[in-house]
């Protein structure tokens, strides 16, 4: 392990703040990066890692604080400006053009041309080869990028960064889509880079990796700096504690009920690259939580159960009956509702009214010969608007103009109107205000007491612990563990989630 940490400071961030309307995303954060080190940024979703990285890479301006680069105070104006100063960022979503070759991607926008304005292909190829060889990579520069796997594409991004003489490389969750061998290849490349004096800011949730590749680690939580440690001087337990210990415990109106009969049973559900051998049961009057980091397969699981995506093998039983349902339409008829993670893209028709969205799934039940009974439709919609307090001017208001919390209530009302009694909530409180959050919690509890079986997927651990009777934790597309509400703590859940 690299225990020696060099002393030259290449990047120093002092007292940096970032305010978004209503939120302080970063609060007086200090961070320093030394020459040739791999410095890991660690924290839960929303802890402020991405914000910090975006500031350093010039994607967003800071609201306060100072950044010095190579001991000069700088103002980073744009991503391009950051690149010119030697800071390159490799995002989770790769920025390569699939139909161009590796060398064309590496020098995109910086091609050398002859006097007729034509690209000197020979130069392009030889320069690309040199860089790739330097990285110890065997990649054919003339092949279109789309033919490479994610890992190789990442390497091409690294090569692109180096061709711009990057001294600081920011990598945002680089291993999230990689296999074990690909991860080793990436680490080999990173070690080569650091030997040459390149510094790496490395964002990851995966604790095991940090101990393998990192020199130091900085933990952020709720936008604040919790601490910086040398990897050799810390432990997983310490890091987990630093990540999740919250000052403020939110209030959850937890409801104790005896769970009833089995409603939904999933057996050995597998889908290549998405889900591995998932089995669980949800009962009446029960909220089952699904925890796990981004990309662990939580949403994929929900979509498979809802028949929105196909799966390769496994069985799903609803009330003991094996399901062979091929479309969401059929699943919905069996009483399952899915409040999607991205309500704007998947849950709502923003151009339609509150009423039209609420009745969208159940419209047939108040139609005759294909004609909608408007009176019944309005009655139904008004009933739910009043019952779950959707704040809209009237039932005919277009959903686009509602607040996030009210949009979420409309998305939920659609399933209430359909009388669904198995409800899957994927990140039900993301991006909504605290008042609406509590209302959603109360609604979930009310449904639970009325006999509904609920699956709740969430990245917010306190919310899961507060609401759920049982929590299954996913890690890398499989179930890593299950905890009951009495024994659930953020530490135990996080331990499973990071595969520790």
């Amino acid at each position, binding site marked *: 392990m690299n225990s020696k940490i060099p002393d030259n400071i290449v990047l120093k961030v002092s007292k940096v703040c970032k305010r978004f309307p209503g939120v302080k995303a970063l609060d007086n954060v200090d961070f320093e990066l030394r020459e040739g080190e791999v410095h890991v940024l660690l924290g839960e979703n929303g802890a402020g890692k991405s914000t910090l990285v975006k500031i350093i890479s010039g994607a967003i301006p800071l609201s306060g604080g100072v950044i010095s680069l190579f001991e000069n105070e700088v103002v980073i104006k744009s991503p391009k400006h950051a690149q010119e100063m030697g800071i390159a960022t490799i995002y989770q979503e790769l920025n390569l053009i699939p139909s161009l070759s590796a060398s064309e991607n590496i020098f995109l926008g910086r091609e050398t041309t002859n006097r007729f304005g034509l690209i000197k292909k020979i130069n392009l190829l030889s320069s690309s080869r040199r860089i790739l060889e330097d990285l110890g990579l065997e990649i054919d520069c003339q092949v279109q990028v789309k033919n490479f796997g994610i890992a190789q594409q990442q390497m091409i991004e690294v090569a692109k960064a180096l061709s711009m003489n990057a001294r600081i490389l920011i990598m945002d969750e680089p291993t999230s889509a990689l296999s074990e061998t690909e991860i080793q290849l990436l680490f080999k490349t990173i070690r080569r880079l650091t030997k040459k004096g390149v510094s790496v800011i490395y964002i990851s949730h995966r604790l095991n990796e940090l101990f393998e590749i990192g020199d130091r680690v900085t933990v952020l939580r709720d936008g604040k700096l919790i601490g910086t440690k040398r990897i050799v001087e810390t432990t997983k337990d310490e890091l987990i504690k630093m990540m999740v210990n919250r000052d403020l415990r939110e209030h959850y109106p937890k409801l104790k009920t005896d769970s009833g009969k089995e409603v939904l049973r999933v057996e050995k559900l597998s889908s290549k690259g998405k889900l591995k051998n998932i089995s669980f049961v949800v009962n009446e009057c029960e909220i089952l939580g699904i925890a796990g980091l981004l990309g662990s397969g939580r949403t994929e699981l929900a979509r498979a159960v*809802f028949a*929105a995506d196909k799966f390769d093998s496994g069985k799903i039983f609803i009330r003991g009956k094996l399901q062979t349902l091929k*479309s*969401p*339409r059929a699943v*919905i*008829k069996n009483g399952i509702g*899915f409040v*999607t993670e991205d309500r704007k*893209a*998947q*849950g*709502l*028709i*923003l*151009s*339609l009214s509150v009423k*039209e969205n609420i009745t*969208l*799934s159940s*419209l*047939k039940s108040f*139609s005759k010969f*294909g*004609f*909608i009974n*408007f009176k019944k439709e309005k009655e139904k919609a008004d009933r739910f608007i009043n019952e779950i307090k959707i704040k809209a*001017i*009237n039932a*005919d*208001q*277009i959903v*686009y*103009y509602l607040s996030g919390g009210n949009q979420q209530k409309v998305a939920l009302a*659609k399933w209430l109107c*359909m009388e669904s009694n198995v409800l899957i909530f994927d990140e039900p409180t993301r991006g909504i205000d605290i008042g609406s959050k509590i209302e959603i919690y109360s609604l979930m509890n009310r449904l639970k007491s009325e006999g509904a079986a609920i699956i709740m997927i969430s990245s917010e651990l306190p919310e899961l612990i507060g609401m759920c009777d049982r929590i299954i934790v996913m890690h890398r597309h499989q179930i890593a563990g299950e905890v009951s509400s009495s024994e659930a703590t953020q530490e135990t859940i996080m331990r499973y989630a990071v595969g520790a």
Partner: protein
Amino acid sequence: MINKNQILQNSRQLGTLIGLFIVILIFWLLSPYFFSTSNLVNILLQSSINAIIAVGMTYVIITAGIDLSVGSIMAFSAVILASAMQSGIGVPIAILISLIVGTLCGLSNGLLISYGMLPPFIATLGMMSIARGAALLVTQGKPISGFSPEFRFLATGEILSIPFPVILMIIIYIAAHIILKKTLLGRYTYAIGGNEEASHLSGINTKIIKTTVYGISGLLSGFAGVILTARLNSAQPIAGIMYELDAIAAVVIGGTSLLGGEGKISGTLIGALIMGVLRNGLNLLGVSSFVQQIVIGVVIIIAVLVDMILKKRKK
């Protein structure tokens, strides 16, 4: 408190209607013949073909699709109708056959788009060529002319001096409006155009709805073919070239967004009438057909520009 979007929609409608009145007013001032009853009826008659095709196009565009094959399907239906009548098949049966042919062409579009996952542009571009080729093949490239008076009565007949084609057009518009506003099909059409993924996850059978919508477009193109054949007393395999663009123009001028999810049948009627009035008025003024094309192009662009400016202000 008021519903912003509703006002915007209505103001858009009002804007198009004002546009129509302005165009009428200009020609009224410029040409003494323009504002006569017979000319106004004539405008309606001339607009009826495009207006009927534009109804189907409105449905398609509300689903965020496009149908380039309408003109070819119209010609194909027309020559099928003509050959059927020529071979001695009775008028009602011949009409039925040609409408079925039009509908089948449209349904094929829909199947290719829904189940074959082809982009609407590509599927209907293919059908545009196929139906045109089929029309030429059936007739060996020559027009078929001369039909029985009872068939031609479809175009020449009138009620209270309103020609049949205009009455048919009005009936089709009323029916299309009711279907779009009051039925499941209509609601789902809007929903799919607004957000297909969310519609699918809400349990709507998006594939069947989309297929149906393209079927309707084909049926109405067939209908237009019947009326055109009766009016001209001739079915031409090369009829209806570029009609898809006229139909799209009527829909767009009428305020339906090419992005889907919104739009009104009444807007399309106004859009088709604006185009009819422009053509008729420019003809009366002796403006060459070349210049007419330029004017219509400018009107389309202005209509959409105004629409976008209004939408930007909303945000």
